[in-house]
C-alpha cells in the first residue's frame, strides 16, 4: 500500500500537455534544410551515397518519403545539409515531402486535398486499424507509444481498434510485402467506407530501404487514394499525432 503510494508519487504527471508545441532534443532528425550552393560533384556524391535513394542531384533535393533519416548526408556535407528537430512533417501531398534547396518552411497539409467527409465524420472520433506489412516493428512500437500515458492521443478521440469493422481507416507500416499484400487488401475491404489510408513510415511511403526488394507487392497503393503520408524511420509519435490532427482538422 505505502509502496504503491510512493510509486504513484514518483510517477507524477506523465502526459505531454501540448502535443502541438512539444520540443524534441536538438539531435532528433526531422525535416532537413538544404542551404548554400551545392556543386554538381557534391550532389552526385551525395546522391550516390544515400542508402535509400532519397537524394536527387539535379535539382538538388531530399525526398522525405524516401529518406530514412540516417543523417549521413549531413555528416558528409555539413555546410549544405542540416536535419532540424522539426517533427511536423506529415502531409497529404506527396510532393510536399520533397525538400528543395534553400527551402526552410514548415511542411503543411493541403486542406483542399482532404476529402470533405473526413473532417465532418472523423473530427471528434477517429478509430484506426493498423496493418504491419513488412515493418521492423519500430513504427508499430511508436504507434503504441502514441496512445500511452505520455502522448495519450486518446485525448482527441483517436485510437487503434482491434477489428477493421470498427475502423475508420487503415494505417500501413512497412514496405508491403508480397506475403502480406492479400491480408492488407482483405483488411481494408472490411472497413466501413469512407475509409482512410495512412502510410506510416518511410518504408510504407516509398519502400524506403527495401525499394529494390523482389519480396514486395505494393499494388494496393495504386488502387486506393492515400490520405496522409507520415515520414520517419520510425515515425515519432508526435509526428503521427500531429499529422492526423491536421488531417481531421483539429486545432
Amino acid at each position: 500500500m505505502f509502496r504503491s503510494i510512493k510509486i504513484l508519487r514518483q510517477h507524477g504527471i506523465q502526459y505531454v500537455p501540448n502535443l502541438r508545441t512539444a520540443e524534441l532534443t536538438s539531435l532528433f532528425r526531422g525535416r532537413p534544410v538544404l542551404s548554400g550552393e551545392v556543386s554538381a560533384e557534391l550532389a552526385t556524391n551525395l546522391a550516390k551515397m544515400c542508402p535509400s535513394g532519397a537524394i536527387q542531384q539535379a535539382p538538388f533535393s531530399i525526398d522525405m518519403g524516401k529518406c530514412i533519416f540516417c543523417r549521413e548526408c549531413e555528416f558528409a556535407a555539413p555546410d549544405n545539409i542540416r536535419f532540424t528537430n522539426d517533427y511536423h512533417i506529415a502531409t497529404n501531398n506527396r510532393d510536399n515531402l520533397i525538400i528543395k534547396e534553400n527551402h526552410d518552411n514548415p511542411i503543411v497539409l493541403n486542406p483542399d486535398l482532404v476529402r470533405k467527409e473526413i473532417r465532418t465524420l472523423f473530427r471528434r472520433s477517429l478509430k484506426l486499424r493498423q496493418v504491419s506489412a513488412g515493418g521492423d516493428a519500430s513504427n508499430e512500437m511508436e504507434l503504441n507509444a502514441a496512445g500511452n500515458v505520455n502522448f495519450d492521443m486518446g485525448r482527441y478521440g483517436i485510437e487503434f481498434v482491434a477489428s477493421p469493422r470498427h475502423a475508420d481507416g487503415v494505417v500501413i507500416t512497412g514496405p508491403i510485402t508480397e506475403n502480406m499484400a492479400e491480408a492488407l487488401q482483405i483488411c481494408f475491404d472490411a472497413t466501413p467506407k469512407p475509409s482512410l489510408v495512412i502510410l506510416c513510415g518511410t518504408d510504407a511511403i516509398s519502400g524506403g530501404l527495401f525499394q529494390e526488394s523482389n519480396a514486395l507487392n505494393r499494388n494496393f497503393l495504386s488502387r486506393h487514394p492515400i490520405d496522409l503520408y507520415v515520414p520517419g524511420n520510425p515515425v515519432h509519435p508526435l509526428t503521427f499525432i500531429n499529422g492526423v490532427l491536421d488531417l481531421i482538422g483539429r486545432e
Partner: protein
Amino acid sequence: MPMQDFSYIELSPGAAPIGLKTIPVLNYPDFAEQIAGLMKAETVHCVLYYAFPFNNGLKFIAILAVDATGKFLVFSHETTAGVTDLESITPQIPALHLFEREIHENFGIGFQHHPWLKPVRFSADRYQKDLTMNDYPFYRIDSEELHEVGVGPIHAGVIEPGHFRFICNGEKVLHLEIQLGYQHRGIEKLFLNAGSTLRRAVLSENIAGDTTVGHAVTHAQLIESLAGITINENLQKERAIALELERIAVHIGDTAALCTDVAYQFGQVVNEALRTTIINTSQLWCGNRFGKGLIRPGGTNYPLTVPVIESMLKTLDNTGMRYRDITDNIFTAPSILIRFDGIGTVTRSQALSIGAVGMAARMAGIPRDIRATHPSGYYAGIKYEPEIQDTGDVLARALIRNLEARKSIEMVKEWAAQLSPVTRHPSPIGSGVSAVGSKPSSFAMAVNEGWRGEIAHAAVTGPDGELVHYKIKDPSFHNWIALALAVRNQEISDFPICNKSFNLSYCGHDL
C-alpha cells in the same frame, strides 16, 4: 566418438576471418554424424546451419557453439549440381528442424526422414515458386470433438503479422502451429546487393526494430573483422552500453505488457513511463529512440558526450529505483502471481531439444548467454553471470526480465561512470562507414547476446573481396517453437500472456 576424431575449425569470439578453404569439407554422412555427435552434449548448440550456392552446387556450413571452451566450431559439406536428397539430421537432433526446412525451402533439398519439411517464410527466392502463403500445410486432427481457432496474420493489437492456428478441445489448446513469413522483405539478398558499407549498416539497423543495436553491433563487428579494423576500448564500451540500454528498455516494456495481459493497469502504466525514460536516453544520445544511426562499422557519429553520460546516470538512478519498487509490487501480488505461476511451461528437456537460446533457454535452467560463454567486444573483459530460472513458465520469463533489467541498469551505471571523468569525448573513435575493403575468399562471423538471445551474422567473400553470401539469425528463429510448446494443454485464454512472455520477433524471423 572422442573429440579428436572430429574435423572442424575452431574459432574464438571476435576472431579474424578465416580462408573459406580452411573450413573442413566433410562428405555428408560424416558431416551429419559429426553434427549429431557433437550436439549430444547439452553444452553444445547450433548457432547456424545453412547452405548457399557454390561451384554449381551448394555449400553447407554448420556453426556450433561449445559453452565449456567458449569456442565456435565450423565445418562444411559441399554438394555438386543435381543433388536433391540428403538424410535428415532432425530425427536425432530436433533443434535442426527449422534449419533443414530453410535449406529445403530455398534450394529444394529433400531431407529424408525429416518429420515435415514445411515452408519457413515463403521467401521470395524460394525453390517452389508456385506455392504461396495460402498453401501452407497446417497440421490437422480430424475429430468431431475438436475445433480450430485461426488468429492472424493481422492481430488485435498494433503488432507484427503472423498466423496462429490452434487445435482446441473445448478451452484447452492441444496444438498450436505458427505460420510466419508475412514480414519477409528479402533482407539477406539486399545485403549482398547493397553496394556500400553504409547501406549495409543501415539495413542491419532495420532487421528488427526492437533489436536495432543488437543486429547493428553484430553486423559492424563482422564488417570490422573482414576489413581488419580494430576499434578502441571506448567504442567497445559504448556499444556495450547501447546493447544494455536496449535490453533495459525492452525488458521494462515487456514488464508493462505482461501487466497489461493480467489487467494490472498500474504496473502497465508505470512501466510504460519507465521504458520511455530509457528510449528517450537513446534519443538524447543519437537522436533516435531505438538507437538507429548510432552503430557504424569502424566508428560512430555519436560518441557519448559528458552531458549525455550525466543525463544517462541520472535517469538510470531514478528509473532503476522506480523499477525496483513497481516490480516488488508485481512479484509480491498474489493476484498477479497466480496468473504467471505454472502458466505456459516449457521444460528444460524441451528447451534443450528445440535448441532454445537466450531468455527462452535461461528461463528453463539452461545457462546459455553469449555474454558469459562467448563474449566479444567489451564483454570479453568482464565476467558476466547469467540470470537463470528453472521453472520454464511465464513467471520465470517475467523474473528473468526483472532481474536482467536491474542488473543491466547497474552495469551501465558502472560503465558510464567510468567513462565520464577519465575519457572526455570526442575520443579518437572515427566516424566509420567509409568504404572498407574485405579479405577475399574468406568466412567471418559475429555473435552477440541481444536482449532476446543470441544474434548471429555470418558472411562469405568471393575472390574479389565482395560479399557472396550473408546470413542473419535472430534468436527468434530458434525460439518460436518454444511458444507453441508453452501453450499445449493451456487454456486458450492464456495464449496472450504466453506470447507476451516470449515477445518474439516476426521480422527477425522472416528477414
